[in-house]
């Protein structure tokens, strides 16, 4: 078949994607939550109630944006503390409300982050839909990777020895936390696979 025709047919196939209006409205609702001033409530350690509780993915996305917009060392360090806070919120939420097989690594994640940063008043967010865990963990993994790179930048430019060692500890903590997130993703995939096998059988 001629190339031009194949390309046009592919274009028509792509036209059939993302045509579900309700799904688009759901994505808009998610963005509205991100843009809402209450979306950062859990990140600053206040207790989100049922009416204002942001979704975990929204918290992580907002934290990534904050980190990406931070340039000065002081601002980056503040953003890194927010990363630790959001990681703890995700960890605690999974410990309290997540599936059984994620609770142990989630506890490890929270404890590791708590050893590296002074976390107070981080609260769990109630999980309503376990299907949302995979994107949350993928986003958190990326955030931790980006935060590690940002911490290396601060450490490299640190004039005070205390700041340097603080960043080294943060780098280690985020690296270990990211490994734990990868482990959780693997556990999630395994449970999805065993569920599919069970139902296929």
């Amino acid at each position, binding site marked *: 078949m001629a*190339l031009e025709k*194949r*390309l*046009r*047919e*592919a*274009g*028509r*196939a*792509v*036209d*059939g*994607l*993302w*045509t*579900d209006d309700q*799904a*688009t*409205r759901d*994505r*808009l609702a998610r*963005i*509205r939550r*991100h*843009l809402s*001033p209450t979306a950062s409530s859990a*990140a*600053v*350690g206040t207790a989100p109630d049922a009416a204002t509780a942001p979704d975990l993915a929204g918290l992580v*996305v*907002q*934290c990534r*944006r*904050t980190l990406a917009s*931070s340039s000065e060392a002081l*601002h980056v360090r*503040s*953003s890194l*503390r*927010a990363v630790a*806070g*959001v990681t703890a919120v995700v960890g605690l939420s999974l410990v309290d409300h997540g599936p059984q097989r994620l609770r142990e690594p989630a506890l490890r994640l929270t404890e590791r982050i708590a050893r590296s*940063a*002074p976390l*107070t008043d*981080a609260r769990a967010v109630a999980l309503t839909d376990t299907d949302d865990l995979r*994107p949350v*963990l*993928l*986003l958190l*993994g*990326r955030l931790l*990777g*980006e935060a590690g*790179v940002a911490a290396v930048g601060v450490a490299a430019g640190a004039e005070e020895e205390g700041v340097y060692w603080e960043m080294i500890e943060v780098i280690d903590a985020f690296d270990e936390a*990211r490994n734990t*997130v*990868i482990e959780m*993703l693997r556990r999630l*995939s395994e449970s999805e696979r065993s569920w599919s096998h069970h139902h296929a059988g």
Partner: protein
Amino acid sequence: MFVTASGSHENPAVPDQFTPFFLEWEPQVRRYLVWLEGDLSIIDDVAQETMISAYRYWERLSTLEQPRAWLFKVAGQRLADAQAARSRLGVLAEPPDVCASLTARDETATCDDRLHILEAVRRLPPQQAAAMALLIQYDLPFREIADVLGISVGAVKKHLHLARKRLKEWLDAEEGGFHGA
């Protein structure tokens, strides 16, 4: 209490006009991105970031008669950032399969063999792939493609010529190999 530098939001609520804009253009941004990237989680991320940028620039954007060039340009920049981050940080987990995920998420999605040509387009250099996507998917005039990519009309024509040449070579080679097997 730990501190987060929360993003500043000038407008307390998403303006009403943004809703129809979002419903019309967010899927279009995704359809553009699917020509350039196969990892659905990155498409999700980039489309979301693009629409958040659209919201932030809403006052200016809402005055444009045709906002698509702005949206595609921003989406392209965000995608380049996301792809660079993936190269730097590696892949956390096997990315969700676009076709499977799309069909699962969107019951009306058609996901057949025609989409396989997308994989070939994604293997092109970024500007060639983007020019091809904008022409095939949206029939954008060369002038507008040039605006999106920030290059001259002549460069757009050159990219499209090279893209077609490469695609034809690849597809001919694949089919030759297939028939020869």
